[in-house]
């Protein structure tokens, strides 16, 4: 179910990348894909009725499958930050693209192509 959501979101993101002419939308679409992939990853680690992987006073001991898989979560933490890095760099590139080509719409940009 959650898998389904994330896959559809990936599809939407790809669709956005393919159809949109505004480069800002590309960043937005990429961000959607990132989020979707993150959801997907966390979903692979979900265990029904598992607890959040934190030892607390209320949950003292370890037994198999009592927690959800912490590793995908750790990976997602990394992936989120990587996504931010990519997006921020992309946004700043767009600022300069706009300055140089006077538009960020693929069809109206000047001096692009070849």
């Amino acid at each position, binding site marked *: 179910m959650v898998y389904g959501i994330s896959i559809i979101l990936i599809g939407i993101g790809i669709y956005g990348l393919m159809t949109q002419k505004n480069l800002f939308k590309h960043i937005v679409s990429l961000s959607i894909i990132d989020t979707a992939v993150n959801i997907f990853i966390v979903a692979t680690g979900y*265990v029904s009725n598992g607890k959040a*992987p934190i030892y607390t006073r209320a949950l*003292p001991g370890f037994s198999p499958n009592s927690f959800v898989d912490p590793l995908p979560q750790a990976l997602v*933490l990394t992936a989120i930050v990587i996504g931010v890095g*990519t997006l921020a760099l992309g946004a700043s590139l767009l600022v300069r693209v706009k300055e140089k080509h006077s538009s960020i719409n693929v069809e109206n940009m000047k001096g692009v192509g070849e």
Partner: protein
Amino acid sequence: MRRLYAILVAAGLIYMLFVFLGTLPLYGKVDLSNRVSAHFLAKDVNSVDVKKWVEGDKQVPSREKIYGRKGFEDESANVVTSIVVNYRSFDTLGEVTVLFASAVGIGLVLGGMKRMGYGRKPNFILRVSTGILLPLIIMFGIYIFVHGHLTPGGGFPGGTVIAAAVLLLYLSNEEFVANMKTSKSLEGSMGSLYVIFGLAGLATGGAFLFNFLPNGVVGSLFSAGVVPLVYMTIGLKVGSELSGVVAEIHEEREG
């Protein structure tokens, strides 16, 4: 037409991923004992007989783990943190580097000189409340990364919260310019510190990023050896880094 093709192709991709999904275990029906994370959770990685483990003899950890006692190989209560900062600390170093690379890249791409103004006077409420909120926000950010090994959160969200404070300053004050020199120095020295932690581990324990400090008791603030230190480093670094990014996107080139 273009949209139609796009929809078709995207639908194809969705279909493909659904088909691939069939190769994964069902949602929620994961058996952790087949995965390495079982031992991250049990925190008994060092006691696993790797040879047997990889050949399919999954040694299900059955030891009782008690909150508040010694005996773990990694003492942070938050297992995700122990993975992020201890078991897979190297990934985190990479992650920090990604952010750093991105910040450097933004600096090089924008290469701004003068602050961009929003062209309007920030309203009174914003200005006053910023003054009140600012220390609180920063305190909160610090709290998040200092308790990273105990509670959810850690260096990255903590640092982000600090950066949010800087953003608030930019929004509330047309004239405000962050001191880039300080933020860069903090960023650089914190980054170096992380690597130096790693090198210290290499020197004392023979492996890069080795946890060279003594462990404490699960659940207490001063536990988990080097983990809180690393998370603080990360928190400060991310905070200064993202503040730098916030400052940089507010800069315009003159002329």
